[in-house]
Every structure is written in C-alpha cells, then in structure tokens.
C-alpha cells in the first residue's frame, strides 16, 4: 500500500485549468490536495481540497495582511523571529514581489508537502528559494508556449531555464513533442520526465454524438486570440474557400475583439462567413462542437491541444496543423486530418477534400478518433500516471 501524499498544486491563481481540475478531483480521493494561489476568488471550489490564499496580486494591503497572518502563525516557532524581521523589511519597502515570495514559502512551510506541482514555467521564480534549498520535491508541468516558444526566441529565458531545470525533481510533459523540447533545455540520465496525456471525462459523453453532413460546412475553432493559434492563416484559407464557392461558415470561439482578426475579416470581405465570439462556458462549447462539421486547429505550435481531445471524444472530426503534440493524437486520414503549419492553401484544400468526403468515411474517422482518446486520454489513466510520477520523484529522493 503506497502512502498517502500531501500534494500542493501551484497554478498562480485558484482558477486552475479544467484538465488539472479533473486531476485534482481524482487525486483528492486518495491524497491530501492543496491549491495555492494569489487570488482569493474561487468560483468553483473542489470538495475536499484546501485552498491556501497567498494574497491578491494587485492589492498590496491584502498581500501584507496575508503575510501578517503567516508571521503570527509562526511567531512561536523556530524561525518565528527571523520571519518577523523579514516581514518588517518587506513591509517597509512595500515590496510586493518579496511579499508574494514570502507568502508562498511560508504556506509551504506550514503544509510541508511531499510534492509541489508547479503548473507553469513562468512560476519558477517563486520556487527559487525551495529549489536552491532542495526542501521539497518539485514537479513541473510542461505545456506549451512557455516551453515551445519563449526559450527559443529569448536567450535570457533559455539561460534561466538551463540553470533551474537540473534542480527540479520531476517533469510532466503533456506530449512527447514537448518532452523533446524539454530535452533541448536539459537532459540527464537521472531526469524524470513523464509524458502524461490529458484525460477527458467520458461520463458526459458515453458514446460519440450523432453526426450529419450539413449543407453549410460549419467550421469551428476554439481558443484565445494569440498569434500562436494561427488564425490569420485560417482566415486566408477562408478567402480561398469563398473564392471556390464552398458553402461554409467559420466560428472562432474566444477571440472576440481582436483587432487583427477583425481587420483581416473585413479586408477580405468575409464578414458573412466568419463569426468571432467571446469565450464560452464548456457546456456551450461542447454544444457547438455537436452542431459543427469540423474542428480546425491552425496553430503554429502546441504542447497538445485539449480542444482536439474534446472534439475527438465528442465525435467532431478534426483538421489540425502538424504542430507539436497534436500529431500524437491525430494521424492523417485515420483519426483526423493534418496539414503543414503556416499553409493557408493546404488548409483550404483539405477542407474542400473533407467537404466531399462520404459520410461513412467521416464516421470511420470519428470512430477511430474516439477509440484513440478513450484509450490514451481517460481520467483514470491520467490520475494513475500522475501518482506514478509523484511516487517516482519520492523514490529518487
């Protein structure tokens, strides 16, 4: 029987990603889970999880108040006086960054966790003290942009990561592709880096939804309006679709208000063909997926795209660029469709090919896609994988 663990999830805020919430819920049944964040407004608290407020980032007084609570809780302990002195210094300087670090370290000192699971590379600066003192086992999640892009265009960031990576006990990679990127930063025989695929909650969709070929091809993308998503290429592809008189409509969820996209749509006279909406709740996104013909992921780089996993699980065919981890999910013409990155013509051509694809072929794609994600992307597997990773990190201790 493996021991019960104290696990800290550090995401910077309390609003953890939906996929990590699934892990938290699942792990929380066996282990003691804490979520640390600089944000005291938890919308949906997960039962059984302890939320530790580190103070509000934007409100220095609130940060100070939280620090004071930590100082008083520790006052009669060994480091109490030292903490008090540090606090006074930070308070006099009104140093919010220092206060944030202080609160984070004090929270950990109170919890004494077995594992500190850091969700983003950008949060590593908070962990410098504990990385240097090796006081806790740190596991770092490697997701996307912060590893796919930043270290490769920002030399300072690359040097920083190269300095910190060897001090980290274990790594979680969301795909093999991102694991390879991680190895470009640091590799060692003793490095623990486990690929753990995101898990989907299949209970909401026991089987794939019904699919009908619609007269108007309903294309769908979901994601923030960041250049890494490659929407500019997809909009150019839409121009080509229009030119070829394809009856289609393209909806981008979560990118409303982006000047570049609005400009391109108007410039190319695609106002009647493209709709951009605000971010929508998961339930509404799933409903849109059920009503769409094809999910398009025109991204330039991805660790893995959870939206692709969701579409495959629900039964919406997927067309993606060959961007990082997505090729581990989608095999061209088997579990979806693939095109090169940064290639509007290929996107348009592939969409036109898809438009003429007979329903039985589409259904074959959908069934294979569902099988693939059921096998590799279920919550049970994800939870066991995380447990394995944590225990492995402790073994090596």
């Amino acid at each position, binding site marked *: 029987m493996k021991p019960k663990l104290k696990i800290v999830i550090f995401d910077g805020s309390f609003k953890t990603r939906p996929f990590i919430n699934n892990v938290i819920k699942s792990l929380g049944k066996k282990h003691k889970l804490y979520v640390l964040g600089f944000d005291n407004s938890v919308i949906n608290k997960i039962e059984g999880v302890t939320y530790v407020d580190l103070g509000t980032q934007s409100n220095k007084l609130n940060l100070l108040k939280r620090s004071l609570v930590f100082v008083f809780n520790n006052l009669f302990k060994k480091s109490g006086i030292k903490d008090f002195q540090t606090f006074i210094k930070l308070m006099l300087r009104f140093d919010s960054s220092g206060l944030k670090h202080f609160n984070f370290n004090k929270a950990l000192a109170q919890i004494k966790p077995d594992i500190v699971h850091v969700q983003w590379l950008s949060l590593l600066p908070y962990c410098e003290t504990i990385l240097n003192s090796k006081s806790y086992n740190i596991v770092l999640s490697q997701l996307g942009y912060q590893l796919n*892009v*930043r270290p*490769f*265009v*920002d030399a300072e960031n690359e040097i920083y990561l190269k300095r910190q990576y060897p001090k980290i006990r274990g790594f979680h990679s969301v795909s093999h592709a991102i694991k390879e990127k991680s190895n470009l930063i640091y590799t060692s025989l003793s490095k623990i880096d486990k690929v753990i695929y995101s898990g989907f909650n299949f209970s909401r969709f026991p089987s794939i939804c019904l699919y009908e070929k619609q007269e108007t091809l309903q294309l769908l993308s979901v994601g923030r309006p*960041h*250049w*890494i998503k490659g929407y*500019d290429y997809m909009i*150019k592809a839409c121009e080509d679709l229009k030119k070829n008189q394809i009856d289609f409509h393209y909806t981008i969820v979560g990118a409303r*208000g982006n*000047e*570049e996209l*609005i*400009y*391109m749509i*108007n*410039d190319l006279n695609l106002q009647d063909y493209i709709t951009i909406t605000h971010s929508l709740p998961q339930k509404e996104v799933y409903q849109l997926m059920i009503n769409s013909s094809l999910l398009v992921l025109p991204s*330039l*780089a991805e660790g893995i795209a959870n939206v692709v996993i969701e579409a495959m699980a629900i039964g919406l065919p997927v067309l993606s660029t060959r961007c990082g981890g997505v090729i581990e999910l989608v095999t061209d013409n088997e579990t979806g469709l693939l095109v090169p*990155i*940064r290639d509007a013509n290929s996107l348009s051509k592939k969409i036109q090919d898809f438009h003429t694809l007979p329903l039985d072929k589409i259904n074959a794609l959908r069934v294979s896609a569902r099988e693939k994600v059921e096998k590799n992307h279920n919550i049970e597997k994800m939870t066991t994988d995380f447990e394995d990773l944590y225990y492995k990190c402790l073994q090596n201790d």
Partner: protein
Amino acid sequence: MRIGLVIPTTPKYSETFFNSKIKGLLENGFEVIIFTQTIASDFNLCKTVKSPRVSGSRFLVALNMIKVGFKLLFHLNNVIKYYKLLKSSGFALTTIFKRMYLNSHILSHSVDWLHFGFATQAIGSEYVAKAIGAKMAVSFRGFDINVYPLKYENCYLDVWKNVDKVHSISQYLVEQAYGLGLKKVIPFSIITPAVDDQIFKTITSKQNSVGQNQLTICSVARLNWIKDLTTALETIQLLKKTYPNLQYHIIGDGDIKERERYLFLVNQLGLEDNVVFHRKLSHNDTLELVGKSDIYLQTSLNEGFCNAVLEAQALGRLCVASDVGGLKENIIDGKTGWLVRSQQPNVFANKIIEVVQLPEAKKIAVSNNAVSRVQKNFTLSYQNFKFLQFYNCKE
C-alpha cells in the same frame, strides 16, 4: 490666430511632423497651445495644457474634481454653452458632467481652431470646439480610419456632425472616411508627411547593383500586425533560395508578444542568419541603415501614407511595397518604386528578384525619380505652407 492642438503626448524631438508644423505656425505669427495627457519635460516649443487626472487614487481624482469645478467657475459661459450643447444632443446628465471634467482643460481656454491631431482623440470631445467658440479640425491617420472604426462601429458619428475641416495624410483616408459617414460637404486638405531637406545630403553613394548572391533588404516597421511582417519574412524565406546570404534588417520594436511572434517565425523558417531585428534606432541610425540597403520593403496590410517609405525614396532606395491604402499615393508604381498585391510572399519575392535583376540604368532612373519627386512634393516647407493655408482658408 490661436491654434489649440489636441494630441496624446507632446511630440518627441524626432517627430518631425508635429514639431515642424508647430515651428512653422509659430514663425508665421500663430499662437499654438497643446492640450495633452502627457508633457515631456524637455518640450518647450509652445504652451502646453495637461488634461485632468483620470487615474490614480480616488481621493486624488476627487480632489482634482473640486479644483476643476472651481476653475470652471471663471469660464461659466463656455460651461453653460457646453452643457446646453450636450443636453440638446440627448446626453445623460452623468455623461455631461463626466465630459465636462475630462474636457475642462480645453473649456477654460479660448482658441480660433481646436485641432485634434488624431480622429480618435476627438471622440468624447466632439462638442468642445463649439462651446468655446472655435472651429473644429480633425486629422486622419491610418489607425483612426483603417482599424479603430471596425472595432467601434459608428464611433465618429458625433465627430462628423461637428467637424469644420478635415486634414488627411492621404486621399485614400478621406475616401474611407466618406464610407464611415463623413459628409462630402466638409472641406478637407491633404497634407502628407514630409521629409527634412537634410535627408538629401545623407544620400549615400551606394550603387544599386547587387553582388553575387548578396542582397540587403530593409524595413522600418513597428512589430505590429498591420505591418504584416509575416509576409515580409516569408518573402525573405523565398528569396533565400536565390540569395542564400541575403540580409534583412527590421528597424522597429514591439511588445514582448509581438517580438516573440516574429522571432519565432524566424526560428521556424530557419532565417536566424539572415534576419536582424534592430528594435528601436535613432532617426539618424535608421536613415543610415536604410540608405545602405539595396531594397526597401513595406509589406503592410494598410497604411495611411507611410513616412518610412517616403524617407526610403528620399534616400534613393528601390522600394517594393503593398498596393494598399495611402501607399498608392506614396509610390508611383514602376516610376518611383513598385507596388504589389499585399499578403502574397511569392508576389513580393518575384518582384524583388525582378527589380534586382533590372538593368543598372533602369534602377538609377527609378531611384532618381523617387528622390526628385520627394524633393519636389514632400518637403517640410511645403507642409508648413499647406498648414498655414489650412487655417487661413475661408472655407
């Protein structure tokens, strides 16, 4: 005559357009007051008036409101007029008081012309000129007309109702503004950006000949999406096949997200040895670098006019630019440079190869055409003259 110029910040030393305009007006006996949000400590060309505080602690804003209210008591005429104008236009009382506070720095002055340096600056201040008995002028820049109204539909309705005269940096922007509701009866004047005569003295003796596989291309562009550096860099990738050692210099900066966008593109296209990002350079260093390049490239999705292309032509560079917006007035296609379809890397690349391979005499002819056209039509003295005319005209 007294001119009130409304701009977001006092012009920096390098901003020729506003500085030269202000100097020109002052030299001709005009009085100029700048109404602005930020005043640079080294700016001393003319009188400046700062707009009231809108951010910071609530206490300070409230304190300032009391101060502003007291000050406005001495300009009750303007205030009453402004109130009546807004009231009769159907504004709610809270909006009226908000606007009164935000425009209080202008309401307490008297000018003959209230000139908004950017159309977007006029939003929320549309009735101020009338209230203080001034004529209202508005300048059009690219962003004002090309981008902002797409996001905020009908944002200029009240501007169109009140404006007396329009200044535009290109005919194109005026045409676009008609599409946005500007009435055709409103007089307008096209006053393009201009170049300092000094620039012609800096023209380098660089031959327009390109050595074996050597090619230097340059762009001056903020790393903003409207400049479409994606197309520029994809063009460079295509050109690399013919000119493996080509060098592309980008002068201009952006925020971290924008910088990462184009650095990552360079990384994905394997152009690290061919592309140099200079970020922000001084005007002199910019001119020097542009002056040394074989080709000046401007791939923008749109431009109001584009000062950088004008300067490149003044320096005798062979310019290849997008066939969009004000660029069509900036370059005479085939004569002072070349215009090609925007967003098409292969079209840009083919045109650049074609230009590079032109006979020497043809290149020199285009370069000379470009220089002499700028010398003739786009000088600061001509710009100054046009502005004097702008305010003096009895239209």
